């Protein structure tokens, strides 16, 4: 149909390629933390008692709360992606906002947790830590390094999701004028992408020539969706790493 041939959907973007690139990047992130996990396992096997004792002083309640918060945010980011796929921008906006709020809540908890540690004199190179057994110093060294770098990733993730939220919420509908076209081809009202085709101009459709106005969420549908999915993948990575940090630091006591 000539209406579709005239539609501006000539994207050369390779979304599969983008996803491959994202997955490869996630590999590198896992290897980044891999170095820390390596140090953790070596030092844990060297100082099992010290690690055991030091871990009992971490606040399991806050850790559990943060785990639940992050897991929930992973759910909401998936819902946001699904909503966008169904072209429901409002729901997508809400779900993204919830995800970002959850991330912020995680950071607030983290802040209080670290603050408490600093208050009782537990911070890198503190007198209190150096007074304790070497394994405890290493445990807290790893604790700050691992949760610190993880928190950095949470912040980056929040930045990425905020940009995505802005894009989804603010990008205006794209309006493209096509035509003039022959009126006998105006059978299409809504195409598969959910784009709405309306006619503009004075005349009725019955008239010979009208101008078509193409209103669509084109950018949202293709590119934005791919970007949001990749941002979601990154957010899942943040979540998955926390799922490993939580038992290693808080639960094995």
């Amino acid at each position, binding site marked *: 149909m000539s209406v579709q041939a005239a539609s501006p959907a000539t994207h050369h973007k390779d979304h599969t390629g983008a996803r*491959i690139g994202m997955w490869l990047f996630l590999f590198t992130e896992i290897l980044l933390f891999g170095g820390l996990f390596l140090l953790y396992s*070596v030092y844990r096997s060297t100082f099992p008692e010290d690690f055991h004792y030091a871990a009992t002083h971490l606040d399991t309640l806050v850790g559990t709360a943060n785990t639940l918060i992050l897991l929930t945010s992973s759910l909401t980011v998936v819902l946001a992606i699904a909503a966008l796929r169904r072209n429901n921008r409002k729901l997508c906006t809400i779900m993204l906002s919830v995800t970002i709020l959850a991330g912020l809540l995680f950071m607030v908890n983290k802040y209080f947790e670290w603050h408490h540690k600093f208050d009782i004199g537990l911070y890198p190179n503190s007198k209190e830590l150096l007074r304790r057994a070497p394994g405890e*110093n290493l445990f807290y060294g790893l604790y700050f390094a691992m949760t610190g770098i993880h928190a950095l990733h949470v912040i980056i993730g929040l930045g990425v999701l905020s940009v995505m939220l802005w894009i989804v919420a603010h990008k205006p509908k794209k309006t493209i004028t096509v035509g003039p076209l022959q009126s006998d081809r105006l059978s299409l009202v809504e195409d598969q992408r959910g784009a709405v085709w309306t006619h503009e101009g004075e005349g009725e459709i019955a008239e010979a020539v009208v101008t078509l106005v193409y209103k669509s969420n084109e950018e949202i549908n293709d590119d934005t969706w791919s970007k949001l999915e990749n941002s979601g993948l990154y957010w899942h990575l943040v979540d998955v790493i926390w799922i490993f940090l939580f038992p290693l630091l808080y639960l094995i006591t």
Partner: protein
Amino acid sequence: MSNTADPVSYLDYQGRHKGILGWILSTDHKRIGILYMISMLSFFGVGVILGLLMRIELLMPGMTIVTPRVYNSLFTLHGMIMIFLFIIPGLPAVFGNFFLPLQIGAEDVAFPRLNLASWWIYMLGAAVALTSLFVGGGAPDTGWTFYVPYSVRSGTNVTLAVTGAFILGFSSILTGINFITTIHRLRAPGMSFTRMPLFVWTLYSTAWIQILATPVLAITLLLVIAERTLGLGLFDPAKGGDPILYQHLFWIYSHPAVYIMILPGMGVVSEIIPTFARKDIFGYKAIAISSLLIAFVGYLVWGHHMFTSGISDTARWIFSLLTFLVAIPSGIKIFNWVATLYKGSIDLRPPFLFTLTFIFLFSIGGLTGLVTGALATDVHVHDTYFVVGHFHYVMFGGTGMAFLAALLYWWPKMFGIMYNEKWIWRSWAFIFVGFNMLYFPMLIQGWMGHPRRYYDYVPRFHATHIVATVGSWVLVTGLLIFAITLFRSFKSRVPAPSNPWGGRTLEWTTTSPPPLLNFTQIPTVTRGPYEPAPTPTGGETS
């Protein structure tokens, strides 16, 4: 050759920006390749000057031109600049960027903007690393390996230098991701994996190492920064930490990095040999797979840098065995190259001359590598000039010569001009003689027990030091002649045909220099990369 039907070349194409902005903001993979080339060769020049200064210092025992502190900074910076700024990113970033899309019949890499960002990140990392020379406590003096505990205690600018290396790692990772995605997604119709040129295969293997190894260096360097600024104590024995773990983490990256450096060089050699032997490559699949094998086994041999660091005998034994395994895929390559030459119609032109030099020098480097890989001999030569000699034979004699060969091979394609071959021959004579005068004495000195990185030495090493220092002057003279010859080609502007060497890979089917989107029409591939085109005359494609 330019005729009226040719499309506008990428050099003349007028994009959104003019002048220098048209280069530093261009997402064209060819322009980015040239950007990398200019920046890298500049850094290489700085590294050469630092090396020259070191050699002059070693000309006489005792102080010659610099103090011991400065000497320590000299070898640290020479290593940092040559390794992180030149030889690790070198071939992939320059020739990989330029020729990967051309060789697989693509218009560009998968993520052109990310590609440009990689260059900017590279420049940022370089700027940070070089800033460490001039501010604060002065240039770092730890050696390029940043071994703890000294790197934590040194009053020099280690933090800034390490940050620079960390940023450079990002650039490396992003380039790796870009290349893998490009190879998987953008091959021309008919370009199956087994029809890819061997240079692409090595870029593919290299990209995987870049992705899998660089993050480990990133976290290690971050921890060094944390040690220096926060005092976590993870590597400090006084606080319970273990400095050996630093060495493990460092070499888990830095040994595979050695293969990041050499694999693309082997790829270049695999391109040049069939072209100048006028033959299909012998053992295509064996060479292709040996690249992946080197990448894989190379990931598991880092412990051989730590034979004298105090690791268990079992670990030393296993690492030594794995190290010897790397010799198998490397040998596969060398034998297949030589077999390609057998009964070939050899055309001894400059790119091929440097390729043969590569094989010769790299073989010496490889064989001395077996000496350092064997436990018994390594304990004797560890941390001596033998290792320095071995490393330079592999890296300069290997990757460096491959870099020069690649420059000569692809120069006509990149700029559409030919250079003066006679002067390249002359430069080669200087380079070859100077190289061996400079590095072979190091092997002898090391064997006699001269430790590396020493500022002063006993008189019995004086003669060999004089030979090496004079050799460095000869070598630099050769490099200068080489550079001037290439520069002069811009002045004489002898136009290059689209296929001056009779190459059979796709980059020779387009114009020299190529148009913005590489091909006027995306090619369809129907044969292996080095098979002759099925023309009635049996000649090469032109």
